[in-house]
C-alpha cells in the first residue's frame, strides 16, 4: 500500500517525459505543473472545477487539474497544452477560426478539443461536441468561433 506523509518524491509522466518531483500529498496537480515544472499553459481560473481553464488530459481524457492531487497522477499519462507542440491541427484550427479573444481559456479549450479528437476520431454528432465544450467557459464569449474551430480541426487531422 502506498502511504505518503509530508513531502514525498513522486514520478509523474508529463508530455512523454518522466519527472521526479517532491510534493505534499495535498498539493494540487495544477500547482505542481505550473510551479515545479514551469508548465504554465494550464491556467488557474476558478480553481473550483467550474471554468475548465486548467484542463489537461490524463490517459487521454480531460480532467480539471485543480481537482486532482499530484500524488494521484502517478502512473498516469499527463498531457498539457505544451505537449501539443504548438502546431497541432487543433491549434492551427483555433488560429484560423479566431477562436479566442483574451486567450486565457484557450489552453483548456484546446485540451478538451484534443481529447474529443482522441476519443472520437471522426466528427461526432453535434450534441456530443456541445457536451464536451460545455465543460469550459470563455468569458470573451468566443463560443461560435470555437465551434467552428472544432469542425476545422476534424478537417485538418
Amino acid at each position, binding site marked *: 500500500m*502506498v502511504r505518503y506523509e509530508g513531502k514525498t518524491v513522486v514520478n509523474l509522466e508529463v508530455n512523454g517525459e518522466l519527472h521526479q518531483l517532491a510534493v505534499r500529498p495535498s498539493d494540487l496537480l495544477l500547482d505542481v505543473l505550473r510551479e515545479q515544472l514551469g508548465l504554465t499553459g494550464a491556467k488557474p481560473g476558478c480553481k473550483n472545477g467550474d471554468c475548465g481553464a486548467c484542463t489537461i488530459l490524463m490517459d487521454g481524457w*480531460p480532467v480539471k487539474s485543480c481537482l486532482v*492531487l499530484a500524488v494521484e497522477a502517478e502512473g498516469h499519462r499527463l498531457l498539457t497544452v505544451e505537449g501539443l507542440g504548438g502546431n497541432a491541427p487543433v491549434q492551427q484550427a483555433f488560429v484560423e477560426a479566431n477562436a479566442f479573444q483574451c486567450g486565457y481559456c484557450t489552453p483548456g479549450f484546446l485540451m478538451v478539443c484534443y481529447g474529443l479528437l482522441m476519443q472520437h476520431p471522426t466528427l461526432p454528432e453535434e450534441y456530443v461536441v456541445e457536451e464536451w465544450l460545455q465543460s469550459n467557459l470563455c468569458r470573451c464569449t468566443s463560443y461560435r468561433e470555437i465551434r467552428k474551430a472544432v469542425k476545422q480541426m476534424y478537417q485538418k487531422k
Partner: protein
Amino acid sequence: MIPFDFIYCRPDTMEDAYQAFVQLQTEGKNPYYYAGGSEIITMARAGSIRPGAVIDLKQIPQCRVLSLDSEELHLGSVCTLNEVKESKLFPLLALACGRIADHTNQCRITLGGNLCGTIRYRETCLPLLLADASVTLFGRQGLRTVPFTSVFDGRMRLDAGEFLVQVHVPRKALQAPHYHIKQTASEKIDYPMVTVAALWQDHFLRVACSGLCAEPFRSAEMEAVLNAQNLSGADRVRKAVELLPQPAYDDVEGSAEYRKFVFQTILEALLEEVTHGPL
C-alpha cells in the same frame, strides 16, 4: 491550494483500505475515503473539511469492476460517471450520470462519490432506487451485500469505516422503458431544481425524485397514486404532489411552491408519455 497537509494512502486491497481507516482513526487523523476527489478537494480548499488523511480507493480491483453477467450489472464504486455512461449498459443511469456536473468532471466524479458525498442531490441514486439495486460494502464485518434501500434513505447510512465497493443492478431493469428529466434554475449544467427518473417495469410506473425535497426519494404511496387506473391523469398528479415525503425544498434557486409546480409539470409530461406507450 489546500492550506494544510494530510496523509495520502492508496491501498491495493479492501482489507488494507479498512485497516488503514481504523489505524488512522485510532491515531486521530480524521480519515476520509477518497475516490474522484472533486468534493473533498473543493471542500478542503474552502476550509469546510479538514481531513488528516485520505484513503484513495481507486487502486482496489473490486472497486473498479464494470461487468455484466447473466443476472446483474456490477458497477465498482470508483467507476467514473463517464465510464458508466459510455458503457451504455444501463441507459437510465447513463442519463443521470450525463446530467451531473459537466463532461470533464464526469471523467473524475465516481459513482460511489456521488452516492456517498455530502452534496444533497445524489442523482445517481434515482435509477438505483427504481431498479431494486443492491450494494456490496466492506467494513468491520468484511464483505456484505444488501439491498440499496437498506443503507440509503436519501443518504448513505454506512457503519463507521465501512465503504461502498460495488453496486449491482438486476438485468431486468437495465433495458426497461425509462424517463429522465432534470430541470435547473437556468443553466443546463447546474444542481437540479427538480430531477425525476422513472422506470416502467412489470406494467407499473416507478418514480424517484431529487432536488424537490431536502433529500432524494422514491415513495410507494406516490407511486400507488400515479398508477391508480381509477383516477384521471390530473387527479393522479394532484394527489401525488400532495404526498411528498418531506416539505419541498425552499432556497434561492427556487421556492418550495415553484419546485412543486415544476414537479407537477414533469409528472404531467411523464403520464402523457405513459399514455402514449411504455415511455
